């Protein structure tokens, strides 16, 4: 499951432009690799993040992983429902499992990210 309307990072974050906001989450491949997610540290709304900056943490039973900002911007919304139901990331990584949304982001930086086809090829090259 690699939606065409997202851009991707090599560290397995996806980003999707929704008009003035950009939603960020982790890919299906990432949630599968992490296993059961038990905790999400959400960024604080208002935080200004730079492209590539670690701004959230996803913990599974076995491991903790940083989530990196795919592009620069300001955290506008966070998915508070993950506090009680982090398993949403496993169940629906591209939908209910979104982690945060950026505003005032730098659209030019999107060109440095992979499209769905490139990400698919990247995953295949990792096997």
């Amino acid at each position, binding site marked *: 499951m690699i939606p065409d309307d997202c851009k991707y990072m090599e560290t397995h974050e996806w980003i999707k432009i929704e008009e003035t906001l950009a939603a960020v989450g982790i890919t299906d491949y990432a949630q599968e690799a992490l296993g059961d997610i038990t905790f999400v540290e959400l960024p604080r709304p208002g935080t200004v993040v730079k492209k590539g900056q670690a701004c959230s943490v996803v*913990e599974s039973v076995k491991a903790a992983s940083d*989530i990196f900002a795919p592009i620069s911007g300001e955290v506008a919304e966070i998915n508070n429902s993950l506090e009680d139901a982090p398993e949403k990331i496993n169940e629906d990584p591209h939908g209910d499992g979104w982690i945060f949304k950026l505003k005032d982001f730098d659209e030019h930086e999107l060109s440095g990210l992979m499209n769905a086809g490139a990400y698919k090829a990247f995953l295949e090259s990792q096997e």
Partner: protein
Amino acid sequence: MIVKGILMGMKKTILYDIHESGGAKISPFAGYLMPIQYHGIIAEHLATRNRATVFDTCHMGEFHICGGSALADLENLLSCQVGTMEIGQCRYGFLCNHQGGAVDDQVTYRLGENDFLMVVNAATQETDFKWIKYHLSKATHIEDVSDKTAKIDLQGPQSAKIMQKVMEDRIDDMKFYHFKHNRYKGRQVLVSRTGYTGEIGFEIYCDNEIGIPLWNDCIENGAEPAGLGARDTLRLEMGLPLYGNEISADRNVAESGLLRYIATRKKFIGSPVVLDESKRKYSLVAMFLDDRRTARAHDTLLDAEGEVTGLVTSGSFSPSLGKAIAMGYISKSSSRPGTVVTIRAERYELKGTICKVPLYKGATWRKNLKEFL
């Protein structure tokens, strides 16, 4: 997030192909490529608590130790009393070094008067063998039978029914921490009522040739395959130690608090240190954390004044309890149940409360087997 690749040059158990074709997530563990999970650690954990699961534990080591002085040699090597074991009984204990630390923790099975099977951890198998061999008298013989022995753990409240269907001889009289020889496909197997999960269950030792059919038979009769991830969360909820985390070569085994596995009326390697109460500075404790975020091994423990008072040895989310739990060593003076500690990780602090083990109170392992048949 960053996904790590699998290391090469690892050993495989006889069940490896089954794990791979069954879609298990495979990771290196103690030199082996082992299934960490099949369908998810939480699902496998809860399946063990509520139904029955099978674990591949073929990576573990087994030594056959026998001969006229085997009993005396094991009394010298092991922290637990060996001579008081009945034939058919098994017992947990430490193989101590001279400093009172653990070369390994193990379970010894008494097969006969001077005839024993010792089950050890995979990571320490080679050093254990050398250590034991070095300390045996000439009349005692040791054979490493690990490579020809398959080991499968069948665990969970439904495991007794499955076990009885799979085995040819009756199992209904099996007592906790006892074993019996049984037959599977006409071949002799050794079955003990032991395990590392807290649930009623069995560890089965058999020849490699029948390991695969036995595994498949357990599954056909209702057991679900589970990986080492769930095995770890299950043991942590029970407060059971893991070698390399809670038990190690440089930690006095008496600080683990597992004193019933440390005999006080005999001498054994390490006993001058282990039995000296003044040498116990720390206590192994279990903790409930306030939230879902977990502590990890090597995080530090701070007391109410902010002073470092210990360290975390294991931490995980507890699938049965829905929050984070941990184990760690803490100064004896701060180890009382109910004490609140601060856990300092690299980037954040968590609060924990010391609690008595087991953290999970619903375990079935000591119950009467007949209730589960």
